[in-house]
């Protein structure tokens, strides 16, 4: 409304917001632009030579196999776990509901370190699959469990009354309704698989991301590394498109009036023991093994590994970047979220699409793009904290966006207008009504961004200012020199910081599924 000049002095300042949001969207396309520019300027012959070589074939095979093997495993664990927790009379299902989200609190590269230092011969595709599955299945479990808890049981009851058995009901009625959650979760898992560096480097499993890092360490931003980045970006875009295709346009929301019935929990009976032992096994492998390993190294290292001159600066810098990054990301996400909720049109959709694309860019590509752009175009901020913060904002903007959008949609414009009709100035009304109402959502989004920054490794390695050490890079430096004991305090701290954030994520998924 305000943007169309209906009333003077709108607090929303839609035009300003449009400009801001456009700038941010343009900025968010820097990595994509970098890869495209590099590919175009490298010269066709060189591109062909660097892309169509056996090594790229190996990496492609490795990366595809990893996705093809890991994704179904994550789906089975995620959907199976969600079903047990939400739809059966599993004993302690409330406790299990949280426990199955717990592996998210252990960063994948810490998980890999724990496994590799316990079983040194762990390497290759099998090891990569094991660690990736254990680290990422909650990304499917959480949305699926949230959706499962919200499904209208009436449809299942109708299906059952029409003669379908419990299994048929699950596969023909329940599973299709989980399609959106499963597709979204799978996309997240696949993108993580493509962009993960530390976890796979530790167990000598080569993917595009590890190969780009190797090229970076040998040539900085050389042509071979850039071309690998192009292929990687192409793979990511391919994933985005296929997720959109799978998701389709179907709606599964309940439109009837009245309260929704409670889902019926299936009796497990004699299968209870089997189900419990499966869940225990998953929990042991994904949480207990890494914790045991970290504690073992902590004990082996003793007091000597807690060097306060290294430990506290790393902690302080990580907290500084995490908090600043979380705040800046939320502020930057606000114009977009606002436009999407209050002025939804083709333009705001376009903005969101640009963000969506950026969110699929691996940290290594963002790092490469920023380091090059900063050196060549804006040397003034090269190697400053601003560049690293900008990379964090770009990488994790969608996490804040999703939350802010949900929060804003719960703060109806009418409330703000009511405040103004009661004599508040537009700015005051905006700050005291709208902003306040979406504060919890913003805090949730900020928490997620914070968590992501604490565990970010690749972009941080490339962009950190001189002398900067975060928990993640300190951990990485130690474990790369096989100083496993020295790395343990950092591993422990990253886990401890991640625990409350994982809880926030879990809680939010429950709410988000209801909208």
């Amino acid at each position, binding site marked *: 409304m305000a943007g169309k000049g209906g009333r003077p002095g709108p607090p929303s300042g839609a035009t300003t917001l449009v400009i801001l949001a456009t700038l941010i969207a343009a900025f968010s396309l820097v990595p994509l632009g970098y890869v495209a520019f590099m590919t175009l300027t490298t010269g066709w012959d060189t591109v062909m030579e*660097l892309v169509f*070589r*056996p*090594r790229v074939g*190996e990496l492609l095979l490795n990366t595809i196999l990893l996705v093809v093997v890991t994704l179904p495993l994550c789906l089975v664990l995620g959907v199976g776990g969600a079903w047990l927790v939400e739809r059966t009379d599993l004993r302690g299902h409330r406790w299990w509901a949280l426990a199955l989200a717990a592996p998210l609190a252990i960063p994948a590269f810490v998980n890999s370190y724990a496994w590799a230092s316990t079983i*040194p*011969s762990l390497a290759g595709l099998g090891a990569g699959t094991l660690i990736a599955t254990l680290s990422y299945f909650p990304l499917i479990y959480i949305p699926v469990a949230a959706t499962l808890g919200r499904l209208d049981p009436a449809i299942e009851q109708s299906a059952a009354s029409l003669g379908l058995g419990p299994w048929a009901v699950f596969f023909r009625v329940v599973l299709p309704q989980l399609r959106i959650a499963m597709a979204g979760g799978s996309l997240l898992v696949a993108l993580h698989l493509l962009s993960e560096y530390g976890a796979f*480097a*530790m167990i*000598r499993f080569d993917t595009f991301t590890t*190969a780009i890092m*190797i*090229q*970076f*360490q*040998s*040539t*900085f*931003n*050389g042509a*071979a590394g850039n071309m690998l980045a192009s292929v990687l970006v192409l793979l990511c875009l391919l994933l985005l498109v296929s997720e959109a295709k799978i998701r389709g346009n179907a709606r599964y929301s309940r439109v009837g009036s009245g309260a929704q019935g409670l889902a019926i929990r299936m009796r497990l009976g004699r299968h209870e023991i089997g189900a419990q032992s499966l869940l225990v096994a998953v929990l042991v492998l994904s949480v207990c093994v890494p914790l045991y390993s970290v504690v073992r190294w902590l004990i082996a290292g003793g007091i000597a590994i807690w060097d306060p001159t290294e430990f506290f600066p790393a902690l*302080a*810098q990580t*907290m*500084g*970047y995490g*908090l*600043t990054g*979380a*705040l800046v990301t939320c502020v930057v996400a606000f114009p977009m979220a606002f436009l999407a909720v209050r002025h939804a049109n083709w333009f705001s959709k376009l903005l969101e699409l640009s963000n969506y694309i950026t969110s699929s860019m691996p940290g290594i590509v963002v790092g490469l793009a920023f380091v*090059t752009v900063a*050196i*060549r175009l804006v*040397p003034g901020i*090269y*190697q*400053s*904290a601003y560049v690293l913060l900008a990379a964090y904002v770009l990488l994790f903007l969608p996490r804040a966006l999703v939350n802010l959008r949900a929060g804003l949609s719960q703060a109806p414009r009418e409330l703000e207008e009511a405040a103004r009709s009661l004599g508040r100035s537009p700015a005051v009304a905006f700050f005291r009504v709208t902003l*306040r109402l979406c*504060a*919890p959502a*913003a*805090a949730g989004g*900020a928490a997620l961004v914070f968590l992501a920054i604490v565990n970010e490794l690749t972009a941080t390695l490339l962009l950190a*200012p*001189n*002398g*900067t050490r975060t928990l993640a890079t300190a951990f990485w*430096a130690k474990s*790369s*020199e*096989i100083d496993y004991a020295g790395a343990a305090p950092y591993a422990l701290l990253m886990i401890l910081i991640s625990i409350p954030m994982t809880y926030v994520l879990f809680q939010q998924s429950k709410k988000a599924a209801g909208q």
Partner: protein
Amino acid sequence: MTIRKNVLTGLALLATAALSLTACSSDAPSTDASDAGEITVYNAQHESLAKEWVDAFTAETGIKVTVRNGSDTEMSNQIIQEGDASPADVFLTENSPAMTQVENAGLFADIDEATVEQVPADFRPSTNKWIGIAARSTVFVYDAKKIDEDQLPQSMLDLEKPEWKGKWAASPTGADFQAIVAALLELKGEEATAQWLAGMKENVTAYKGNSTAMKAVNAGEIDAALIYHYYYYGDQAKTGENSKNVTPYYFKNEDPGAFVSVSGGGVLASSKHAEQAQEFLKFVTGKKGQEILKTGTSFEYAVGSDVASNEKLVPLKELQAPSIDPAKLDSAKVAELMTKAGLL
């Protein structure tokens, strides 16, 4: 509900306060420079060794040192891209090729004469644009239970032969190994090197890092590994946990596999703290700096100020290393050949 919201808002505010503090302190390192000055070192040497040098240097001179860690050719390429705007004052490497690359780009200042005089000619380029700060030797570590002494390869070149398929490990992605390939390239030429790399691609099991490769030999995962000497001695000096089943073997005989790699240090021509930067290299190649190599945990060879190396090491003179001018090592060509061979 409202209370919880207020708590969250409060937390957000607290976060803002905390961040502005940390952000300020990390953004402006130059404002609190002490009188003695400060320098930025781009360090590709082992972090622990660089830290020993830096701490001792700061203790003696009061000059504050900021270290950026990375790997040899990553940082040489980075410095070249940064050009005159490079924040680096000093560049330290593990191997010579990266030094040569920066030198060829014309970015190094001349090394102070007093510093040059501290290091014998064998361990510095003829141009004196940079200086040797330490040295490391190639070594073939093997599992004596799996390989008899008379089965050991006579030359590093033998390792491309079919009988060595699946038997040896290396860390081809590291600058260390790439320096060995650079020596091979300089000694035997491009064609022979490309052929050796192709054979290596068939035979080798690639690990990330020399220590990991040695650990694999120790654990019986693989028969042997081509690495640098100090990983073995360093581990022996600690617990021996990763090297107790490992025997070192030197190729000697001026073989490419007997290559001794010179770690270098240089002062950037663009440095705004040239005096302090020169002082740092003088310290590193001086008696105190070199004694850190002798007594510390690095086990790299000392090269300057007549300081003897750690006595546990096989003396440098007995290694019969091929004589190579470090200025001739071509890292860009090596990266290209290894990329072609599918090793990178």
